[in-house]
């Protein structure tokens, strides 16, 4: 069983839950950017949680089924996609995903999972570390694995669409919030940050009124995780997503709560982001 890739759009990668447990070796977790959407896609076709899916950035993916397969898409809703409603793609039938009206990343799950060769225990493509399967390209033939669990028989899963316009997420103080003081925290939480086009799977690069450091000096590199708001010397925070570096040498002022990071992964350039401290 396989899918033949006819087109990929701006970026399509194979992703799963990544490589936990190897960060001490300098190997980041990586994996799907919007974990909640990918998990739903796998559930809808009866895959285990760690099955590999296709992460499609801003639509544009086209595939042809080389055997009858059950497929579903979640995340950003693309015209032409079986959005949150599994369908059988017959042998020879093509599936084409148009550009989504809102959101950025869509997840295409195939019953049995994308069965490319794992690298260091995972099928995730880490674009920062250059680890894992190659970025998906037109002409690729992606193997599909054997089904493991029974199909759930769900016709449709009603889920909210990713936000268009402004998104507000919850932020908690980070380990170096004191480097920025009260004024820095107010600066972080009191403005609408613009998501710039330099954003990718590594992180969202934000634009706005820069945050000022209260102290000079270098920070010895320290470990960080998804959701970290790292502030480089420019004062413009970077919100780390799936392929973030394992350690970083710039202070982390705050952390977006773990579940809210998934929503941030659906932001596209031009949208705005607000941080609410509770």
């Amino acid at each position, binding site marked *: 069983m396989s899918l033949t890739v006819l087109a990929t759009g701006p970026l399509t990668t194979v992703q799963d839950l990544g490589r936990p447990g190897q960060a*001490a*070796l300098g190997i980041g977790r990586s994996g799907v950017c919007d974990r909640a959407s990918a998990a739903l896609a796998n559930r809808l076709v009866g895959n285990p949680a760690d099955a590999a899916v296709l992460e499609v950035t801003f639509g544009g993916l086209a595939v042809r089924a080389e055997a009858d397969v059950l497929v579903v898409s979640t995340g950003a809703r693309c015209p032409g996609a079986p959005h949150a409603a599994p369908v059988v793609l017959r042998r020879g039938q093509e599936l084409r995903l148009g550009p989504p009206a809102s959101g950025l990343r869509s997840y295409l799950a195939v019953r049995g999972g994308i069965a490319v060769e794992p690298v260091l225990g995972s099928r995730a493509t880490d674009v920062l570390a250059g680890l894992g399967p190659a970025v998906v390209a037109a002409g690729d033939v992606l193997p599909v694995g054997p089904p493991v669990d029974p199909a759930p028989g769900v016709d449709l899963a009603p889920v909210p669409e990713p936000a268009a316009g402004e998104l507000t997420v919850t932020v908690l103080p980070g380990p170096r919030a004191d480097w920025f003081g009260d004024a820095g925290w107010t600066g972080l939480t009191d403005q609408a940050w613009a998501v710039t086009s330099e954003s990718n799977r590594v992180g969202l690069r934000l634009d706005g009124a820069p945050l000022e450091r209260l102290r000079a000096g270098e920070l010895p590199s320290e470990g960080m995780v998804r959701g970290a708001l790292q502030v480089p010397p420019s004062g413009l925070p970077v919100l780390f997503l799936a392929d973030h570096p394992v350690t970083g040498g710039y202070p982390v002022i705050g*952390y977006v709560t773990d579940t809210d990071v998934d929503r941030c992964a659906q932001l596209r350039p031009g949208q705005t982001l607000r941080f609410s401290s509770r």
Partner: protein
Amino acid sequence: MRLLPSGSAALLVELDGLDDVLALYAALSADPPFGVVDVVPAARTVLLVTDPAATTLAAVADTVRATTPRPDAQAVGDSVELPVHYDGADLADAAELLGLTPAGLVERHTAAEWTVAFCGFAPGFGYLTEPGGQWDVPRRSTPRTKVPPGSVALAGEFSGVYPRESPGGWQLIGRTDVAVFDLDRDPAALLRPGTRVRFTAVPR
């Protein structure tokens, strides 16, 4: 030991220095607290990454506070020998910064018993330290856009080996033919926290 917040899924433990980091990392990695998926040592900190579905940060914090560091464990890591061609582009500069001749730097670099303190920057890049060593080498003022794989380098109190071609600001003193990161080998990363490293000079 200071426990610093790192969001809803992680906890950062700040310590006084590298020795304390190594000792706490040795204890935590040998017996990770329940629900902790990654333990990440760095220069002054140890990050604990949890699975929020399996544990709470409060439970992990309690376990960390009750953990007895293992300063003795540093000496039990694997031992690796890395033959080096000491012909790096910055060998003379680095020697001068340390008040040594190039031959003197090579002598000190090969005499030292290095230990991988932590990894980062790239998969398989180890930050090597010599306990009690007198290494203090500033980074290059202008980083290179391309450092060749296998480059052996110095920066601050650390020595390191670039696993693959990448940008880098460390002073290059030589190169090794040993692949420190190789996906076709198990384990792929040769240099892991605690690994002891001895550099040897390949005769010219």
